[in-house]
């Protein structure tokens, strides 16, 4: 009967009898394929890649030292020597923006990584154990989500003291419920999926189901949400920096650069313009990429 299914008539043109060559196309490959077709997503990826490269090779690319002061060179307008001008300490803004990419990406990735780990763990516990564990954890998420996020971050930083590290922790904390809820709902919904029933039906243990089925199938939404969360985290870090609650001098953090130059907006608008543009561009990059990933990874779009 296997033959019945495969009764390819002998005289078929060669391209009909070729299915054997079709390679395994994993869902990830498939996603990458559709991601690649999305122009905006590629723009986003390029922007992100660009900033990542800047961050990695900052010492090689940057024309000056990010903290080399030359007070007499205060607020010079953009020129051949200083493409983006200088700030009030006579430091090269371009250099500081290049180094700033390190800070922003670092905060973005690390804080999101933190939230993903903590949030996912809590979310899985809540979703898996249910009952009062779920009730308690979910209430904690509710409470955390009930605060406007910046406000919560400010409060956390006030407790811990202003510094880049603490800003990072604050941002990680405010994102925990996002991932917690995501994972919880993934666990709850994946639990209902037929293939999980199938896994149970073959006598699989819960732990294996969690590890081999639920987690891998939650990865895609985590990646999408994570990418978008990096974008928000970067903005939030910059906002904290802007309020003086984030990175401290002479760290070239973009938000802080903005705040420091605020008073010179009339006299030296470039000092405000470029850091802001850098923030926006990076965040845009992550958002574009996140959108593209969502389109590529969202199973609803697949047929």
């Amino acid at each position: 009967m296997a033959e019945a299914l495969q009764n390819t008539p002998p005289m078929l043109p060669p391209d009909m009898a070729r299915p054997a060559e079709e390679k395994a196309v994993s869902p990830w490959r498939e996603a990458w394929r559709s991601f690649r077709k999305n122009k905006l997503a590629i723009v986003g990826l390029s922007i992100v890649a660009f900033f990542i490269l800047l961050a990695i090779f900052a010492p090689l690319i940057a024309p000056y030292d990010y903290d080399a002061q030359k007070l007499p060179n205060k607020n010079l307008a953009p020129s051949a020597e200083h493409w983006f001008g200088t700030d009030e300490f006579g430091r090269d803004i371009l250099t500081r923006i290049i180094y700033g990419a390190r800070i922003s990406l670092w905060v973005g990735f690390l804080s999101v990584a933190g939230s993903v780990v903590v949030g996912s763990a809590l979310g899985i516990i809540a979703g898996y154990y249910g009952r009062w564990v779920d009730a308690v954890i979910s209430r904690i998420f509710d409470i955390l989500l009930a605060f406007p996020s910046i406000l919560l971050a400010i409060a956390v930083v006030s407790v811990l003291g202003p510094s880049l590290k603490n800003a990072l922790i604050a941002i990680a904390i405010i994102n925990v419920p996002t991932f917690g809820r995501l994972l919880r709902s993934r666990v709850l919904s994946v639990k209902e999926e037929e293939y999980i029933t199938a896994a149970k039906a073959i006598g699989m243990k819960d732990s294996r189901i969690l590890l081999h089925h639920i987690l891998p199938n939650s990865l895609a939404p985590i990646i999408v949400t994570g990418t978008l969360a990096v974008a928000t985290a970067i903005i939030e870090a910059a906002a904290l920096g802007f309020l003086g609650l984030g990175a401290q001098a002479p760290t070239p953090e973009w938000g802080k650069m903005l705040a420091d130059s605020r008073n010179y907006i009339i006299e030296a608008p470039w000092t405000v313009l470029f850091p802001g543009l850098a923030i926006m561009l990076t965040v845009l990059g992550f958002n574009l990429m996140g959108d593209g990933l969502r389109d590529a990874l969202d199973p609803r779009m697949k047929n």
Partner: protein
Amino acid sequence: MTQPLVKVENLKMHFPIKGGVLGKTVGAVKAVDGVSFFINKGETLGLVGESGCGKSTTGRALLRLLDPTDGKIFFEGRDITELSTGEMRKMRREMQMVFQDPFASLNPRHTVEKILEEPLIVHGVKDKAERKRRVKELLEVVGLNSWHAKRYPHQFSGGQRQRIGIARALAVNPKLIIADEPVSALDVSIQSQVLNLLQDLQKEYDLTYLFIAHDLGVVRHISDRVGVMYLGNIVELADSEELYDQPMHPYTQALLSAVPIPDVEHKKERVILQGDVPSPSNPPKGCPFHTRCPQAMDTCASVKPVLQEIQPGHYVACHLYE
């Protein structure tokens, strides 16, 4: 007669409904409300009924994927409702399931090889080469090629996916397969391929099937005996030939007459039922079918008829036959 492979006694599965200010249980969906039947070794029991009548729930309860509210399920004489979770897990290699939606029941992130390997791993086949060999064998048994092993479910057609589902069920050499509408999602031309496959496998491996479907033609084709469900109850259970030729329960009669026959010559008496199936959360008192029954009597509204053997092997739950 030897002992049946499966024996179900008064199986009940009620799902609580939460509501009210405090989210308390305010009622129950009586998805399965006291069902009894048995399946002999090597035979196919068909289960038909309209949507929501509790067919799938019965199937799942049988595998203890749901914990029955009440009732007993004997598998080879052992009451599996009393097994611990661990024991039940071991028991699962004896009984397997094939699902309606061939796509949803396959993990989209696993290759076919992984899907088929998993039951082997779970049931302790340690040797990797041995597992690979088994996978290849399984694929061939269900009419796929071994080069399909590296592919992902989305690269298959519906019929092929269903074959993978069947292969997975076969992987642990089960005695019983519960097939929950395995062909409903398939095209007619593919449906017949899968039905044939199931029949072939049954012969070859001496399998027992509980075959759930709503297509009466399919059920007749594949089943030795057929049970008709309505609102969580079996209203009639008989040999397939007998049930189709001489349906006794008014619901069965109406059901059979409602099916359009692909034959222009065929003329028949139509019994058209009025209204819809009542909600299982609020089933009618007495006979669950009395609200739509063309032959309803007074007693039907108050007394729930029990399933009785009216003729040898022909069980009906209806006051007309008392």
